């Protein structure tokens, strides 16, 4: 790294790391030059598509011309609302190549949630899948300054302009903002995490080097590309090595998981623990000899799931840890499998440093519990426009809000979260998101939402609701009320009406009237 880059305090580390590329465009174009005929992307499905590095660069160039001719300028933000698809991939890279900032949006979100992200990020243009037309129609008129472009195919989109000429690209620095990824926020609205080209490149390099990816690696991407994990681990990390990626819609990946691994000879994949539990629950067996490792993060991986999975499918699982604020992974269990420390989330990638700090931001001793803190090239600049939440980036560290320990050999262990965040199948949901919806019902007196154990998803959502005197409300009424107001994965699995309970009169609260989520969880554990 050159010394004149504007490194923030929480991005500095005590050792030198050399990045070979200046930005994501530089990475893609150099790889296309080195391996023009090598397959980069394979998108199986009804509309099977494959791109060599050279073919992909060509269509990215053409799409970049389209974006520039559409009037978009460097640092403008574009929202992309797609499930995993070639349309997302091409627009993502074309946007990054033009110096635009990409705002990937989860298409499963409600219209209201999508609108919030478009407004909060100041997106100028929204590209969306044609299958989301009805959702977009609900918000289009209220966002009159935003251009909406329905995208069925990139070829149709770029045919609007002559895109055959050579394109003149803008200069992009390592510190230009590349992506803003929205993650669940404690107050209810999601918060945008600002990630630069430095963040994307460094984390991609860290993962690629950790697993010793080569040009022959074939990574299976089943995680959604609107999240950081899918983008970094199975798209940019393989790109860093000039390898290949097989990309599939998550919704169809589970049934076909082993078929896809075998058919496309995948060597590596990245999953959530809930996917491993689901694969264990299905009768489908492994048919390939190609898969050598699975990276697992985003949720607690239980010892029994890991043991059962490895025993039945004979492929090692590497547990890792990271957050959107660290681009994706910060640490991963030792590779290869023989050197793993079972139960640990591993050691830090070379592009960041990790520590366990106490409340005074001082490092604690080995095996003493404290907050997991990270600093390095993969640590985000901060949150979009929210000084209060930017408190997590302080004293030269990003404070994760997660608690854990470190052993004498430098292996880290995850213990749990400080706050009430619910992690359902890898999706982060703060109680306030659902509580804010429930409180809009005129007959609700008070409510609180907690995570409850779920065998497949790790956690699911339970809402405790107190109904106003004389009001008549059923669980069914409340389910209907929440529908379409919030993403389906944030809907409660269970609604408990407190008025019907004999041993709970109201939501437990502390002296400042703050909900005592821990106490409510304890109540649930003892009573249900």
């Amino acid at each position, binding site marked *: 790294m050159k010394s004149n880059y504007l490194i923030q305090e929480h991005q500095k580390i005590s050792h030198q790391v050399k990045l070979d590329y200046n930005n994501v465009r530089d990475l893609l174009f150099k790889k296309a030059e080195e391996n023009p005929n090598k397959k980069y992307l394979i998108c199986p499905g*009804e509309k099977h598509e494959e791109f060599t590095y050279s073919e992909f660069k060509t269509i990215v160039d053409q799409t970049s011309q389209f974006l520039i001719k559409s009037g978009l300028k460097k640092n403008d933000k574009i929202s992309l609302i797609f499930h995993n698809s070639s349309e997302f991939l091409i627009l993502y890279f074309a946007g990054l190549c033009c110096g635009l900032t990409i705002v990937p949006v989860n298409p499963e979100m409600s219209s209201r949630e999508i609108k919030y992200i478009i407004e909060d990020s100041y997106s100028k243009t929204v590209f969306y899948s044609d*299958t989301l037309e009805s959702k977009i129609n609900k918000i289009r008129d209220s966002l009159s300054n935003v251009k909406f472009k329905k995208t069925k195919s990139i070829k149709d989109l770029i045919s609007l302009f002559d895109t055959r000429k050579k394109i003149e690209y803008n200069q992009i620095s390592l510190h230009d903002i590349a992506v803003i990824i929205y993650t669940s926020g404690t107050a209810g609205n999601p918060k945008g995490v600002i990630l630069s080209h430095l963040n994307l490149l460094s984390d991609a390099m860290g993962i690629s080097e950790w697993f010793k990816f080569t040009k022959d690696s074939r990574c299976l991407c089943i995680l959604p590309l609107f999240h950081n994990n899918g983008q970094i681990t199975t798209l940019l990390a393989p790109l860093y090595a000039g390898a290949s990626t097989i990309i599939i819609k998550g919704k169809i990946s589970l*049934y*076909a998981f082993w078929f896809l691994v075998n058919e496309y000879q995948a060597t590596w994949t990245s999953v959530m623990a809930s996917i491993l539990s689901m694969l264990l629950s299905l009768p489908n067996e492994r048919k390939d000899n190609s898969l050598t490792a699975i990276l697992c993060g985003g949720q607690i991986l239980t010892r029994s799931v890991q043991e059962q999975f490895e025993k039945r499918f004979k492929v090692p699982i590497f547990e890792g840890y990271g957050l959107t604020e660290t681009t994706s992974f910060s640490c991963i269990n030792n590779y290869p499998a023989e050197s793993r420390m079972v139960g640990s989330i591993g050691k830090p990638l070379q592009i960041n440093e990790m520590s366990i700090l106490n409340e005074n931001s001082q490092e604690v001793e080995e095996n003493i519990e404290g907050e997991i803190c990270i600093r390095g090239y993969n640590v985000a600049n901060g949150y979009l426009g929210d000084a209060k939440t930017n408190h997590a980036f302080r004293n030269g560290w990003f404070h994760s809000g997660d608690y854990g320990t470190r052993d004498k050999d430098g292996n880290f262990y995850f213990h749990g979260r400080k706050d009430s965040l619910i992690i359902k199948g890898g999706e982060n949901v703060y109680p306030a998101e659902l509580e804010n919806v429930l409180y809009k019902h005129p007959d609700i007196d008070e409510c609180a939402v907690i995570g409850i154990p779920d065998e497949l998803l790790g956690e699911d959502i339970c809402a405790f609701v107190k109904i106003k005197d004389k009001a008549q409300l059923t669980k069914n009424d409340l389910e209907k009320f929440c529908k379409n107001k919030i993403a389906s994965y944030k809907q409660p699995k269970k609604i408990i009406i407190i008025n019907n309970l004999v041993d709970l009169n109201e939501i437990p609260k502390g002296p400042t009237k703050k909900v005592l989520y821990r106490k409510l969880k304890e109540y649930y554990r003892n009573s249900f």
Partner: protein
Amino acid sequence: MVDPKTDLDTRLEKILKEVFQIEEVDLNFSMDEIPEWDSFKHYELIVAVENEFKIKLEDVDTIEITSIPIIKSKISKYLNEK
């Protein structure tokens, strides 16, 4: 005699409502338009379709099924081959 296409629609509609636990379903919808259609439900849907129509979908079919019209065309294809 019942029109085989209508019969297929009715039987498929019943499966979709049961699997996704929804009251109404538009038979032209894609998976993106049904929020309840997740990866686990996709698995349940395939099993339910195979059982109901006594057919066996190929692995490759299961990654092509991204909409209800595609399911219908796959079912018709296998029923015609019987």
